[in-house]
């Protein structure tokens, strides 16, 4: 069995029209993967950009996987929400990226999108807030039913992930 260490952080997000953002993240793997240590999902704190556009979270990601095969390589999915002064949470975007497969540090920019409703719903969202959300969260990291969606582009989430691979060369994997 080979082992993968994912050690990094969710730096922050830019390009969102809302401020006071927080991020819910999770890592989804296939059946052949076993999580040895670490939490595979979490939620950052709420951050308001002070100077410039970037909301900083610096949320740590530290995972240790063992795997029997290459299928089901870990995927990172994100949901960015904004929280207003009344404590209401509104969806700002869904994002996705694969965890890289080559060892080393990677700077990842994960763009996000959010589902659009009709023009009525869009108007309501602008004034009152709220808006359509995905019924099933797994549409973020699977592509099967995506074509049914009509979305708008959101901001970008910045990640820094370091990857350590172990024993892959024993099984002839070049990565």
């Amino acid at each position, binding site marked *: 069995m080979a082992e993968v260490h994912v050690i990094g952080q969710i730096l922050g997000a830019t390009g969102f029209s809302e401020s006071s953002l927080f991020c819910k993240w999770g890592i989804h793997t296939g059946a052949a993967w076993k999580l040895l240590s670490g939490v595979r999902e979490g939620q950052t704190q709420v951050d308001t950009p002070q100077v410039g556009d970037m909301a900083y979270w610096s949320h740590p990601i530290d995972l240790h996987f063992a795997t029997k095969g290459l299928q089901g390589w870990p995927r990172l999915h994100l949901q960015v929400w904004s929280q207003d002064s009344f404590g209401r949470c509104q969806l700002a975007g869904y994002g996705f990226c694969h965890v890289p497969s080559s060892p080393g540090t990677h700077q990842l920019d994960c763009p996000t999108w959010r589902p659009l409703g009709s023009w009525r719903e869009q108007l309501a969202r602008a004034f009152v807030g709220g808006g359509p959300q995905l019924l099933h969260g797994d549409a973020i990291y699977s592509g099967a039913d995506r074509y049914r969606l009509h979305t708008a582009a959101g901001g970008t989430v910045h990640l820094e992930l370091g990857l350590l691979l172990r024993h892959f060369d024993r099984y002839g994997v*070049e990565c």
Partner: protein
Amino acid sequence: MSLTCQVPWPPVASRGVTLLGGAFIPSAKNLYLGRAQRKGSEGLWLGGEAQVQQETACDSRQTCEETPERQGWADAISPALSEADPHLLAFQASELGISEEGSCPGKGNGAARFPAQSRRDAAVMAEAVWSTDTGEAVYRSRDPVRNLRLRVHLQRITSSNFLHYQPAAQLGKDLIDLATFRPPPTASGHRPDEDEEEEVVIGWQEKLFSQFEVDLYQNEAACQSPLDHQYRQEILKLENSGGRKNRRIFTYTDSDRYTNLEEHCQKMTTAASEVPSFLVERMANVRRRRQDRRGMEGGILKSRIVTWEPSEEFIRNSHVINTPLQTMYIMADLGPYGKLGYKKYEHVLCTLKVDSNGVITVKPDFTGLKGPYRIETEGEKQELWKYTIDNVSSLAQPEEEEREQRVFKDLYGRHKEYLNSLVGTDFEMTVPGALRLFVNGEVVSAQGYEYDNLYVHFFVELPTSNWSSPAFQQLSGITQTCVTKSLGMDKVAYFSYPFTFEASFLHEDESADALPEWPVLYCEVLSLDFWQRYRVEGYGAVVLPATPGSHTLTVSTWRPMELGTVAELRRFFIGGSLELEDISYVRIPGTFKGERLSRFGLRTETTGSVTFRLHCLQQSRAFMESSSLRKRMRSVLDRLEGFSQQSSIHSVLEAFRRARRRMQEARERLPQGLVGPSGARSPSSLQPRPSVQEDKPSAI
């Protein structure tokens, strides 16, 4: 025989003059002795002393008469000695000391002791190359700090030390017994030896009382805190049992008032107006209270993450460093003899700080190979003291250490086995001879397009030869429709659409020299808006990267155009545009046969670009072999130290392996009958047997 008159004026006299600023009054005899001593070597010394011996034997009376003069001279010298710089002092004093000895050698024994004495003194003087480096040193130890033992040796450097003289034994009868002669008290006062030198072994937080403390705590009224009372009890007990074993060296432990005051009021600069700042006050508070509450280390409040009103205690714990630190001071009372027990003569010899992580800070460092440290006392009589600090903690027994090592090794080994068992050893392997390509990718974004509501339709095309993919594989995908937003000058649509792709490459045709073809990723960008106007925005293609790793590919796209405005107007108002029938036309059309591809007549317009992020992995048994072979080769050649031949030998071995494999395959292909048990064709089938069995057909 007196040799004095014939001795020329030796340089040592001039040296004396320059160094001591004229306090040195050379006399003829002194000059002689200085010269003899300057020779330095023992042989000459002996020769020299033999002469001296003779001289004194004859001129003993003379020698004795000289002594008062010499003594007076010594008196004159000693204050000068104490004022001069110690380095030069030591050097000059060594000469003077030895010369002094030489002047009053007494008997043969005294002369015989010259080399020993001179050597000893020379050694004393040699080691008095003072160490001025009093910086602190940090040590780390995993053993409990209560096993720490220090030996402190304190010694006063005075003129009598230089001019240390021991009474000589009597040899001859007619010589005056100089054993009765003792150097009279010098100007600085004659002291017994014990007071000038002290050596104590001190343990961690071992309280040694100073004279001042003994005097103070014996008085019941002076005891205020329970600690004072405890000290008083101990002192009384000590007095009853015969006094304390230390005289000048004493210690302040962590619980003494001195420790806190010292930390609070320690001055760092020469500024007269230096007062402890706010931070110092806070740190001092922390340290002082640290003694009462040692268990508390900056704990994390689990229930509430943010404290809106931090308490004073919280501020102290969180705003300043809070590592519990234990301090101990080794002090020396350097007052004049008989006047011990005055606070103003206390000097710090050594500061020890130990924290809970086993970090021991010693300031100044252990003496070791450096020279001793010195203290110059101030006051009407400046004196020089030197001291050394040595670490005499007993080391752990080697058996114990070994046992400890074994326990640690067991523990870590077991933990490693547990982790390995969690991980296991399976892994899916490829078919031998196949290369498996594994791509995790995502369609990231599309930018620079004309219209809104974009979506990307992409698929992967495998080359026809040698490539295959699992049956359930989905090689194409359509992203969601995304409304663009402005990013700088461009309008960009974000998709973040994941896909994975797996294919195997089987190299069946070994003779072909052509490079293997790699799969191609085609993409098509389309827009579909609210009014259901469907437009083609662009076509593009990119070859999947052949190297494993992370790749961000930007595919530039174009769309076919028609001449004239009608098509464009239609495209704008209704939608619909020219489309490619076969998307593979973007690269090389599937129906293409021939040598030259001509696209003459196709009119296109450049549109935007699509960004893909691909993470490629390749798996093959060949990688296992070569890497292990490379590792083996490296180890063998490392031993032979043939780095330059590594690649050539490696290639030769690979070629041999390949040839052997081919031969094996060739042998397998041959019909079984041809191959005999030995694996070679039998000779009888080839050549007719001579003579006897000529008529018989050869058995094949």
